[in-house]
């Protein structure tokens, strides 16, 4: 009925293609989200003070933004349509809910962004100062609004809510828009993601400003930019810690397997340990009896405490989630698979009975289906261990993100301290500081991509948590077609990235325009 015998390589290639597009897209988007606000702050100061140097500063960052923006748009359109081209069964299964945020994104956010971006770039000598400033702010707001809607959609996949399954149309239908929009997962995800963008953008600005200071050029522009970016980065860092904590609590509650993977926790319990960092035993599999870690540095009880402010809080590990912990209300995975298969077959029987006009049978089958629907996705799995994501990848990505994020706080603090007192050019180890700032640009990209790896690899095999695994979501097409498009995309995106990096570096070297009227 559904694609029960899907070619596994089709699923892998489709996932690879989506991951490729998403990761390329995410190279460009964080800077866009954050730098627009930084630009808007700068232009606001220009309009307030009338100081042409601020205008020059604004226009310099705007130029870099423009180079970065176009390529984000280019990869974004592919992402949107890939839901249809490569995940068409998914598109139908949840389109009634998932389509709405995408449409609202277009109507509300993309038009705002694309309309005012034109004024921002071309309107300097055509519209009034205030109209121009308003356009810059609206572009920033538009870009962030578009992030809002796509993250609401993503949040819904992690924590499906506000819907019911209609057996006649064979899809989930929305019953409460506000449940979807204001779901705690969506809200946390949105705030955590945009603030991560602000941090990446702040480091981008500080890094490039440091380059100018290293070269002894554009000192005023660089120092002013650093002040704004370090304040913005610091505030965002506080927000990202809070929302990161909020996200982890949500994951613990709604996606316990993801949390277990993030912490490399195979055997759970109360007083669970929070890993500072560690090395998972190479080749470690669930139930192989090997030690979890070769080396570790953790805080006993901290994980339980952070999730529930109670170190006696029980946190299930990977193996507990497979075996089941009845006293904690966790069903064994095999039992969920069995129930899922009942859901799948009763839906099929319901449809046949209904077609044949057998009302009594149809009613009976529907009742059976509804009783087991919450295990529906498990019905497409073969064995309990199918619900385990790639633990090592999730674990290392998560810890890379957290450690880098913590490091960035100190970088922001250092730059804030020196720029606030205007002593950066007198600091003894200033060169070291500048080089660290430059290094933070690629590091911030790594941290930000790692965050998405945690979210998306950590939820495997689910496209829609518990309701639809990737194997049931994929478009029925030959694996070789997807392979071909994967390589075409890989070549095109890489070529565009090379051009963008080359243009960007050159524009940074050229620096801002000579003078501003």
């Amino acid at each position, binding site marked *: 009925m*559904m694609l029960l015998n899907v070619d596994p390589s089709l699923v892998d290639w489709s996932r690879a293609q989506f991951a490729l597009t998403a990761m390329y897209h995410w190279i460009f988007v964080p800077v866009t989200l954050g730098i627009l606000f930084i630009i808007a702050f700068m232009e606001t100061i220009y309009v307030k003070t009338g100081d042409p140097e601020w205008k020059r500063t604004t226009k310099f960052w705007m130029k870099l933004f*423009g*180079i970065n923006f*176009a390529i984000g*748009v*280019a990869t974004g*359109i592919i992402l*949107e*349509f890939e*839901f249809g*081209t490569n995940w*068409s*069964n*998914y*598109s*139908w299964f949840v*389109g009634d809910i998932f*389509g*709405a945020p*995408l*449409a*609202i*994104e*277009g*109507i*509300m956010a*993309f*038009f*705002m*962004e694309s*309309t005012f*971006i*034109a*004024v921002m770039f*071309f*309107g300097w*000598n*055509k*519209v009034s100062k205030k*109209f121009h400033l308003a*356009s810059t702010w609206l572009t920033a707001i538009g870009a962030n609004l578009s992030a809002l809607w796509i993250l609401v959609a993503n949040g819904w996949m992690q924590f499906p809510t506000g819907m019911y399954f*209609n057996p006649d149309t*064979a899809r989930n*239908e*929305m019953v409460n828009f506000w449940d979807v929009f204001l779901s705690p997962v969506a809200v946390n995800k949105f705030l955590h993601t945009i603030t991560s963008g602000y941090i990446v953008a702040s480091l981008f600005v500080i890094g490039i400003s440091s380059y100018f200071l290293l070269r002894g050029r554009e000192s005023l522009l660089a120092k002013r930019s650093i002040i704004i970016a370090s304040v913005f980065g610091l505030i965002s860092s506080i927000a990202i810690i809070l929302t990161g904590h909020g996200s982890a609590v949500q994951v613990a509650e709604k996606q316990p397997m993801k949390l277990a993977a993030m912490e490399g926790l195979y055997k759970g319990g109360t007083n669970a340990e929070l890993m500072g960092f560690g090395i998972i035993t190479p080749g470690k599999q669930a139930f192989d009896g090997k030690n979890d870690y070769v080396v570790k540095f953790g805080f006993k009880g901290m994980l339980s405490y952070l999730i529930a402010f109670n170190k006696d809080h029980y946190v299930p590990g990977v193996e507990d989630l497979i075996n089941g912990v009845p006293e904690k209300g966790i069903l064994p995975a095999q039992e969920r698979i069995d129930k899922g298969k009942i859901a799948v077959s009763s839906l*099929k029987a319901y449809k046949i009975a209904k077609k044949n006009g057998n009302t009594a049978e149809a009613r009976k089958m529907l009742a059976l289906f509804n009783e087991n629907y919450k295990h529906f996705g498990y019905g497409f799995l073969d064995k309990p261990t199918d619900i385990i994501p790639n633990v090592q990848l999730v674990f290392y990505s998560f810890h890379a993100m957290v450690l880098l994020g913590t490091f960035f706080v100190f970088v922001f603090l250092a730059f804030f301290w020196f720029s606030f007192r205007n002593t950066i050019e007198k600091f003894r180890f200033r060169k070291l500081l500048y080089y660290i700032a430059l290094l933070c640009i690629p590091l911030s990209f790594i941290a930000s991509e790692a965050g998405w790896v945690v979210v998306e690899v950590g939820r495997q095999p689910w496209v829609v948590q518990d309701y639809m695994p990737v194997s049931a979501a994929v*478009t*029925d*097409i030959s694996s070789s*077609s997807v392979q071909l498009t994967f390589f075409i995309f890989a070549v095109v995106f890489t*070529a*565009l990235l090379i*051009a963008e990096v*080359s*243009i960007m570096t*050159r524009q940074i070297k*050229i620096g801002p*325009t000579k003078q*501003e*009227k």
Partner: protein
Amino acid sequence: MASITFAALQHYWWFLVSVLGSALVFLLFVQGGQMLIYTLGKNETERSMLVNSLGRKWEFTFTTLVTFGGAFFASFPLFYSTSFGGAYWVWLIILLAFTVQAVSYEFRSKPSNVFGKKTFETLLFINGFLGTILLGIVVATLYNGAEFSLNTMNHVKWDNPARGLEAALNYHNLLLGFSVFFLSRVLALLYFRKTIENNEICNRIKKQLIINAVPFVLLFVSFVTILLLKTGYAIDPETKSIVFEKYKYLHNLIQMPLVAIMFIAGVLAVLWGIIATVVSDKYDNGIWFTGLGTFFAVLALLLIAGLNNTSFYPSITHPESSLTVYNASSSEYTLKTMAIVSLIIPFVFAYIVVAWRSINKRKITRSEIEDSNEHHY
């Protein structure tokens, strides 16, 4: 009572999707213009003027395409899953053609762009060429159908191994594809006439206008004639099953006179804009007539594709799987929620007009393009 409301919402959303589609066809002047950069611009400055004139508008076309996709997904998800997943290759080629466009404006004239100016101009050409023809072909499949079936879970099975490319072998689809191709060029010429101040370019525009308008009119008239004589996939209002109806689209025009009037008025406005620009040396408002005319004529064509009990995406191989506004739409709740959201569209339109006018108040001149303090492409 509830079912009447649901049907009204389904029709309302077909109307909205059609509005977005029509706006998109008008905005394809950007793609048309990208094919004319070398035809109209004989030196670097002239070409830069043309590229910059388009560069202020490409995002509207792009955004409209994305929003069209999103709105179609939200309102008729079965089309999204059926057509995108089924006609895989044709959609992916369209997407790629738009992906390479987005960067080309920004990268084209920047130093160290690795691949050179010519490459990005070629990408703009490819976007114009493939984007217009393939979008036209895809839209034509709303009348001519495609080869697919849907199972009880509404999952698509495509019956042609070419996965969508087979649509390019149907001559009626091709007629629309090439009509859109020439129309986009005509619109671009009129748009340049309005936005660029340069005598040499204006003289070339006039000549090109005739060269492109004549094939457009011939192709478009052939497409419409065949369409109106065609047997369509109608929905039996009683059983909701698919029945064949001779002259279905002609009947739709007759049975919806407002749509017929819209179509005729649109076509006349298109012609007026072209003719007025050709005969006069001073007239530069052709883009408004031809543009608005395009919008209304396309809107009428899209309305007769889906309204009045017509299948908007027929299955040639399994007619019972054909998509209609009834079986392909979102739930009543979602359509209602989205209908509330759609109330902001006039507001969005208003700010687009304000911003557009503020940028286009003055024509693009040689001196603006040569000013290094201005943002250029």
